Every structure is written in structure tokens, then in C-alpha cells.
């Protein structure tokens, strides 16, 4: 029982991180129809910037914020330099384009921060016990930060005009343009949001698993699995999808084989995709039309 609870805790913690990365996939996809394969690299860069900022003497929270802001800004630059000029390209072209961006970012990380993995320190040392389950402060930090991001996003999308304009642009782009909402502006906003959410994920996971230049691949792909589990259009769904994926992964790692853990996510992806081919999100897109 304790084992199971521990595995669940680990799964939820990792899942929260996948969910945050998944949020970015959804934000960008909803407005632009693009799957941004550089999402995982955004997460890695967020952690690296935070590590450097910490090294420069900033307090941990400030360093983390610096990482988030830097990546949000970087994501906007990526949108302007690589995505916006190619507007109207085919799906294939966009896939290759974002793949190119992801490779370039990966290489940039390798150049600047080197080949060795690095870690941020955890928010606090020590552990606590809850009915035999070991909980670290970093676990709590992951949950609190994820809840905070979710709350901020909820407030943004439900309470602000810009947030609603964003949703309008995702739901009915033609009508959105007719009331004066610029899809180009919303696309930049989507990238900024995606970059920020991914950076939060990368920063949160860095004390638990070393951050290295190539750890973005798995983070990104699992974020995508989280997003597509929820249908690619729902931001709260992406977080839930991440939590689900994290738990499945953690349980199969614990009970089957830890080596195959990474393959499980993709097995889940394949099964979901094949059982609901091409259309996990068609259901939602039809609402009310």
C-alpha cells in the first residue's frame, strides 16, 4: 500500500511537469494549428537560465522568474523569426520547422551550458513522512507551483478581455478577426504563454532530474502526450492528461520495469492515437456550431 501511494505521489509529481509542458502545446495549437516540437527545449532553457541566474547570485525565486521570463521572450522571438514568416505553410513544413528550431535550441544549450547535466537546488532540504509516504519539499513545490500556474491561467482565460480574445481566436478565427482580434498578436501571446509554462516545468523538475541539453526531447514528447490525451484543445485537460500519464508511467515503472518507463508514454500515445485516429479533439471542436 505504501509502495503504491509512493508511486502515485511520484507519478503525480512527474505528471504535473508533463502537464505544464502540455499546456504550451495546447496554447500554441489552439491558435495556430501548429505542434511546436521545441516545447521541451523551452523547458530545458528555462532551467538553464535559472541555474545561471542563481550562479550570478540571485535568490532562487528571482532566478526562477528570470528563467521563466527569458524563455517567454525567447519563444516570442522564435515565433517572429521562424513561425510568422512561414504562415500558411503545410502541416509537414511546420513540423520540420519546429523540429529545426528544437535542434538549434538544443545545440545552443549544448554550447552555452556544456554537455554535463546540471541541477537547481531544491527549495528546501529534508523530507517528511505522511503515513509512510516520503514527501520532499520539492514535491510540494511542484504541486504548489502547478496549482498556481493553473490558477493564473484560469484567471487569464476566464476573467480578462485578452484571455477571452485568445479563446475567441482559437474557437472562431474568422469571427475573431472581424471584431478586431489580430491572430498574429494572439500567436505571439500563445508562444509567450507556452514558453513560460514550459520554463516553469523545466525549473521545477531540475532539482529532481538533472537538466542537460538533450533532456528536452522526453519532456517535450511527454508534454505532447499529455496534451493529446486531453484532446489538444483544453488547457485544464492538458494538466489532467499530464497527471494521468505521470501516474501510468510511474506505476508501470514500479511494477513492470523501470528501464522501459520511457517507452510506456509512447505506447500510451500509440494506443490512444490508434484507437481514436486523428480525432481526439474533433469532439470538442464541434461544440455548439
Amino acid at each position, binding site marked *: 500500500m505504501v509502495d503504491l501511494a509512493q508511486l502515485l505521489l511520484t507519478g503525480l509529481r512527474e505528471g504535473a511537469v508533463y502537464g505544464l509542458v502540455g499546456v504550451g502545446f495546447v496554447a500554441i495549437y489552439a491558435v495556430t494549428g501548429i*505542434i511546436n516540437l521545441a516545447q521541451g527545449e523551452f523547458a530545458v532553457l528555462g532551467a538553464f537560465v535559472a541555474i545561471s541566474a542563481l550562479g550570478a547570485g540571485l535568490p532562487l525565486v528571482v532566478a526562477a522568474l528570470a528563467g521563466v521570463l527569458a524563455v517567454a521572450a525567447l519563444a516570442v522571438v522564435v515565433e517572429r523569426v521562424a513561425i510568422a*514568416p512561414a504562415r500558411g*505553410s*503545410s*502541416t*509537414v*513544413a511546420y*513540423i*520540420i*520547422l519546429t*523540429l*529545426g*528550431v528544437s*535542434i*538549434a*535550441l*538544443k*545545440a*545552443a544549450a*549544448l*554550447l552555452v551550458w556544456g554537455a554535463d547535466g546540471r541541477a537547481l537546488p531544491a527549495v528546501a532540504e529534508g523530507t517528511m513522512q505522511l503515513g509512510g509516504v516520503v514527501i520532499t519539499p520539492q514535491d510540494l513545490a511542484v504541486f504548489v507551483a502547478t496549482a498556481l500556474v493553473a490558477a493564473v491561467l484560469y484567471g487569464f482565460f476566464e*476573467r*480578462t*478581455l*485578452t484571455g*477571452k*480574445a485568445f*479563446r*475567441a481566436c482559437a*474557437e*472562431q478565427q*474568422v*469571427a*475573431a*478577426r*472581424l*471584431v*478586431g*482580434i*489580430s*491572430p498574429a498578436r494572439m500567436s505571439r501571446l500563445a508562444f509567450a504563454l507556452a514558453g513560460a509554462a514550459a520554463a516553469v516545468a523545466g525549473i521545477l523538475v531540475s532539482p529532481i532530474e538533472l537538466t542537460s541539453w538533450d533532456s528536452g526531447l522526453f519532456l517535450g*514528447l511527454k508534454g505532447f502526450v499529455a496534451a*493529446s490525451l486531453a484532446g489538444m484543445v483544453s488547457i485544464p485537460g492538458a494538466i489532467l492528461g499530464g497527471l494521468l500519464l505521470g501516474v501510468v508511467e510511474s506505476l508501470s515503472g514500479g511494477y513492470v*520495469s523501470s*528501464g*522501459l518507463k*520511457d*517507452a510506456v*508514454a*509512447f*505506447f500510451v*500515445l*500509440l494506443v490512444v*492515437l*490508434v484507437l481514436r*485516429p*486523428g480525432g481526439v479533439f474533433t469532439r470538442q471542436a464541434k*461544440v*455548439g*456550431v
Partner: protein
Amino acid sequence: MIVGRGGRRLDLALLAGLALLVVAVPLVASTQLVTLGVFAGFYAIGALGLSLLMGRAGQVSLGQAGFLAVGAYTSAILVVRHGWNALAAAAVAVVVTALLGLVVGLPLLRLRGHYLALATLGFGIIVAVVANEWEFTGATSGIYGIPKPAFNGRTYDSAREFFWLVWPLVVVATWLAANLVRGRVGRALAAVSDSEVAAQTLGVDTFRLRLQVLVGGLSSVWGAVLGAVFVQALGELLTIWVPRLIPGASGEYQLIGFGVVLAAVVVLLPGGLVAVVRRLAGAGRPAAATTAPAPRSRVDGAATAGGPLLARDGRPAPGTAVLRVTGVSRRFGGVRAVDGVDLVVATGEVVALIGPNGAGKSTLFGVISGVIQASAGTVVVADTRVAGRPHQVAAARAARTFQNLEIFGSMTALENVMVGRHLRSRDGSLLAVDGLDAGYGRIAVLHEISLRVPAGEMVAVIGANGPGKTTLLRTISGLLAPSRGRVLLDGAEVGGRPAEQLAALGLAHVPEGRLVFPTLSVADNLALGAYSLRRRRGRSGGAAGPGGPRERFLPSRWIAPDQVLELFPRLAGRLDQPAGTLSGGEQQMLAIGRGLAARPRLLLLDEPSLGLAPMLVAEIFRALARLRDQGDLGILLVEQNARAALQVADRGYVLERGRVALAGTPGELLDDEGVRAAYLGRGYVEIAAEVEGEGAPR
């Protein structure tokens, strides 16, 4: 597609050239270059498979490396553990990988686009994870000690010999792939069997493989080969040159280079290298797809909006008389300043009036421009006879300057110019469309459309099915760029400006199909209708208007303008409901309300009656008539329901095959036999009667 007509001959020539290169290169090139060539060959073969998949179906497979790994492991295990001959091992490896491709491909190829890409990537990663975990594949240490291949007692161990082994295979594979692509059977099989072709026996970097195909051009078999060589050379150059340029740098730059090339190719060369080569090769021939730019009238710069001159058919042809002065005289007391002058000025002409001081030149100018009354004779500007009314002359679009300048000294230069535009905005036409052509891509839908919507009027465009009417509205509102002609909103040219900017200029377009924001509440839909207003206000100085910056946080129903709710009381009770749950009629009301929320000057309505019950149609048309009667809003209504539309409209245009076939008052149109026969069915008579019964129409 891959290769056009005559492509077969081109392919043969290329093949022959390639064969020659294959033989010659190793003889003359350095070992380093030959090694580079060997790897380029490996990648070329691998890239061919991807090229087929991507080019044929437009699908992305990111799992090719997985197949490559399976092929490589199969042959390596057979050779190392079971002592097989390399050729036999390779053959079995191809078969095994092909079968795997079939098994994996059958379910996965049902996926499309992003999903296929990510699913195949997932497959590739599963292969990698399994290979690293499984004892059978040597886990992390892999399989080593693979002997150099030997056929016919000959061992291929030098770079040169490898080159001669690999490149003939490249040539054969390319030829096969080209045939597969062109053949009918190949076309049918391609979707499932592509991955088999790629199932070769060497492990390759995933992204290199993709890059090659991409650089070569996704739809081209030759591109795969070209791209492979290019990328290999690029990698080599990067590893050689970058460390020289940046001391201490090493292989990472190669990675950056690949990433940048990958992204840059998509952005800059969507067709890849092959497309560039073809473009260069075809540069001598005229490009079929280029259409000549629309000829622009010579008077373009001078012409302004409105006025009878343009109203009929755009601009006068060159050489048309635009000013006729006949027998004009002017006396000041006993002095004859101007005496019986006749002159004609045509478009495209400069006519000089010369004479000494006091000869009467300025007086004649005064008469022509209407400042001075003529004692005798007539002045006709365009078609307007001028009788001493300067503003009429200006309305006929004659402009003049003055000897003593007559500048408005108290106003800025800009304001002076703005005064010159007075007429354009005063023309009465809130919307003026002149000689508009538009369409989708090369399909022309609208031809030479000219129409006017004055403020305070409702103008109906009727016509049979077909895209013309909606296309017209889409072009006016900026969803579509006109290919020719002008759209003037309040005298300002707006043609070609994107829709999202026009909303802020007071244009609201209620689109066909209503397109409400389904998951957002009715109140939010209305609030977003005013989005352009608030963006504008926010920019022009912050705290203007109630709420100031706090406006960004929506007080739930404060924003819905009372006018909208008063006009459509049904919406008032549903403000918190998601718009997607409304009935069709309510959605239509919401869509109109959303348009009105921006306080537009011009409202475009696309088929507001479509799919609605007669009761609701009447309700909506009553509301439109009320709006019109308020006086400052211009409404352009597109309707299939011709009778109902003409009952409320002030004027109507009949659109036929993308042209204005007829224009006039509703009475004139309703009396027209052709219109009656073509557009006025019986079913709408009752609705029209109902609307009429309310006294809504004028």
C-alpha cells in the same frame, strides 16, 4: 509532382551522369572526400524512403531511424552471432524490416499530420529504448566486431571500395523509387509500403536523415540524393571551418548549423534545392503561373471617391472630354473680362491658357470653378452643368488652386490637406466600392463591382446561389484582398487592409453562419464585439472612458451595450449562457449584436435569414429597419431572401455571376421581370407582408 512530363528522359540523363560520377569520383578525389561521399550515400538511401512518404502523401514519419536501427541490428546479429554472409544477412534484414514496416505502418498510417508525426517519433523512441534495454541487442554496448562486407571473395575495406559498393545501390534505389513514384501500382502501394524502401541496413542519425530529404525537396526523389550530399558536405564544412573561426568550438556547431538550415529551408525555400535547380533550369521559359499585374488606370493617383463621374463605370477612358466650356462670357459692369470662350479639356491632356495680365484668365478660372457667375454660356464638368456653385463643381471632381494661394492660414498643413478630403467623406457614401475584382487564388469570383452605401441607408445585394455575395462582403471587410479596384470607407482606401484592422475603423461584418464564439458566454461575445473599441481607447490615452485600465477585467454584463439588449430582448435573459447553446435565431441576434457592440458606422450582414423560422426572420429584419432609421449607420445586407430584403432596403443591387447586373430602388427591382422570375419565390411573400405590417419599411 515528382517529375513532370518528360521527366523520364531527364531521369535517364541524370542517372547516366550519376553513374559516371560514381565511377570517376573515387579515382580523383581525396580519401576524406570519398569517405564523405560514402556517408552521403548511406543517408541518400535512407532519405529516399522518407522522401517517398513525405512527398507522396504529405505525411511526416519521424520513425525512419527506428526502421534503420531494426535493419542494422538484424544484419549485424546475423553476421556476428551466426556467421552469415553479409549479402544474405542484408537481404534478410531488408525483409524483416519491411515486414515490421508493414505491421507498424498499417495502423499508424491511418493517422494524419501531427499525429502521424508524433506517433512515428514515438515508435522510433520505443525502438531505441528497447534496443538499449534488451540483452539480445547488446543493451547499451550494442553489437560490435562487425566484419567488413565481402562479396565474391572481395573485401570492401577502403573508403574507395565502399564508395563503389554504396553508390551503385544509391543509383539503383533512386531508379526504383522514381519508378515506384510514377507507376500506377506504386502510387497505390506507396501509402503502406514506403517504409520498406527505407529499410536499409545502417543506423543513421535521425535528424540528418530528415534534413536531407528536406534540403533536397520533400517531393523529389532526386532531392533525397541531392540533399544527402549537401548535408554531408555542410556537416563537413561546419566541422572544419567553425573551429577555425571560433577557437575552442567543436562539433556542437554542426548541430546548430543543421537546426538552422532545417528551419531556414522551410522558411526560405519551401520547395527545397530541387525546386531551386528547376527554377534556374526553367528560367528561360515564361512561368505559367504568373499572372500579369492588373492594369491600373492612368488617373489612379488623381481620382478620388464618389461623384457621378465614377459612379457609373469606374473612370472615364483617356481622351474623354471632362470639361466643356461653351460661349462663356463675364462682364463686370461695362468691362468684358471674358467674352465668348469655348474650350474642351479631355482626360490625359494638359491645356494651357495663356495671355497677359488682365486678359481674363483668372476670371475664366473663377467661372469654371463656380466662384464667379457667368453672364452667358455653359460650363460642364464631367456630366454636371455648373451654375455658379463651387461645391457642385468640386463634387463633380474638379479641383483648382489659386493665384494668391488661399491657404487656410490658421490650420496646420495636415489640416489643410484634410479639408481637401472634405468631399470624400461628405460624398454621402459611407462605403464606396469601385471596379472591384476579387476571388480565391486564381479563381475570379467578382468582376468590376461598383456600389455605394450611404450613411443611414440599408442597401441590399441579392442574387442566386454561388459565392459572389459572400465574397463581396469578405473582400469589403478585409478577410480577402481585392485583386483589383478600390474599397473606400468614409473616403479612406481600405482595400487590402486585414480584417482585424478594419474593425477599429468602424466596420462590422456579421459573417455567414454567424460564427459566435461557442464556449464563451453571450455577455463575453458581446464584450469581444467591442474589442476593437477598447483597444483603440486603450492606445489613445489610457484612462479615457469609464473604468480606464480596469476595463481589461470584465465586469460581466456592464459591457453589453444597452442598445443591443433593447434591440434583441431575447439575449438579455441569456447573458451567462455559452453562445454555443443558443438557438440558431438567437445566435444570429447575438452575431448582429456582437457587430453592433463595436458601435460601427457600417454594418455588413451576410444572409441573416438563412435557416431561420419566418417569425425570427421578421424579428431580425424589424430590428435592422430600426437600426437604419436611427440615421447614422449604413447597412449592406446580402440576402438570398430577395423579397424580404428588398422590403426593408432603400436600394438594391442584383449580383449575377459576380457582376452587378442591375441596380435601383426596391420598387424598380421588384418591377423588373427578370428579377421577379429569377429571385422572388413565393415562399417569402408572407414574411415580407409581416415585416410590412409592422410599418418598419419606409
